[in-house]
């Protein structure tokens, strides 16, 4: 496709965002199902969940929360910057989102490694000895934060592609719906974390 800053005859930005929102709804339902599973198991094994949740590091969870919230704000601002035709600023803000997104994953790596070192991973002997409630808690912990981390990776790739398009002027101040959609996806990832953090790290 050629650069089409002004070729807007076949464009439907609202339709494009509508498609993104429909996809986001399926994601919300997917995670809602997991949150319900977590809630029911917590209700039925509250003592084990209480003990298991104490194992998680609130500091690293809080750090990752701050990282995600800030990265969400910068990707939102990058749209404003692009609308004002400030391309470099827009790219810098997106670059910040990409950078701290990677920091989030690095933190997750260290967090999980520490759990593995303590023998806490799905199917481990330590976990089986601890009992059924702990198996459920850590099973859900690894599955839900893992699925969330997968979404972070997809979001980073999406924003990376958009970043590249902005450089090449395929996304411009009057044609930026793809940047908006990448932003919407990143904010969804943010919202999921907003619930994961208190449910796994804070409520003990």
């Amino acid at each position, binding site marked *: 496709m050629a650069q089409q800053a002004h070729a807007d005859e076949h464009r439907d930005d609202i339709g494009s965002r509508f498609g993104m929102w429909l996809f986001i709804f399926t994601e919300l339902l997917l995670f809602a199902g997991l949150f319900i599973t977590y809630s029911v198991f917590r209700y039925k094994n509250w003592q084990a969940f209480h003990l298991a949740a104490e194992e998680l590091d609130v500091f690293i969870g809080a750090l990752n929360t701050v990282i995600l919230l800030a990265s969400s*704000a910068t990707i*939102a601002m990058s749209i404003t910057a692009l609308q004002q035709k400030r391309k470099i600023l827009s790219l810098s803000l997106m670059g910040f989102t990409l950078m701290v997104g990677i920091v989030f994953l690095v933190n997750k790596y260290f967090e999980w490694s520490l759990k593995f070192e303590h023998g806490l991973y799905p199917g481990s002997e330590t976990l089986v000895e601890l009992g059924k409630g702990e198996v459920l808690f850590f099973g859900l912990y690894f599955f839900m934060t893992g699925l969330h981390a997968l979404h972070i990776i997809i979001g980073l790739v999406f924003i990376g592609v958009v970043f590249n398009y902005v450089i090449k002027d395929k996304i411009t101040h009057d044609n930026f719906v793809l940047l908006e959609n990448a932003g919407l996806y990143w904010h969804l990832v943010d*919202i999921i974390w907003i619930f994961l953090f208190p449910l796994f790290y804070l409520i003990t």
Partner: protein
Amino acid sequence: MSHNDEKPHIIPYKTFLLVLLALLAFTFISIGVTSYNLGPLTVLIALLLATFKTILVLTYFMHLKYDVKMFAILVAAVLALIAVVIFITFLDYLFR
């Protein structure tokens, strides 16, 4: 139906900064509150604060306030659906 030109709405940086500050404040409040053991109240407060944060993200970061009304209505409908499913699931588990 061509709507491409109807939203040159530029949201100022300041709005996003203020929203970010509010989100961070809610985060630290929830960390503070949950460090006290208030029983079931802890869960309620933590989830309530998470809900406030979600509303802020949806309204400002995801532009629902500035976008076509249809998106906000659909999001509300999906969230209502999720709430109903949670409610019915717990009706089952609590009164078994």
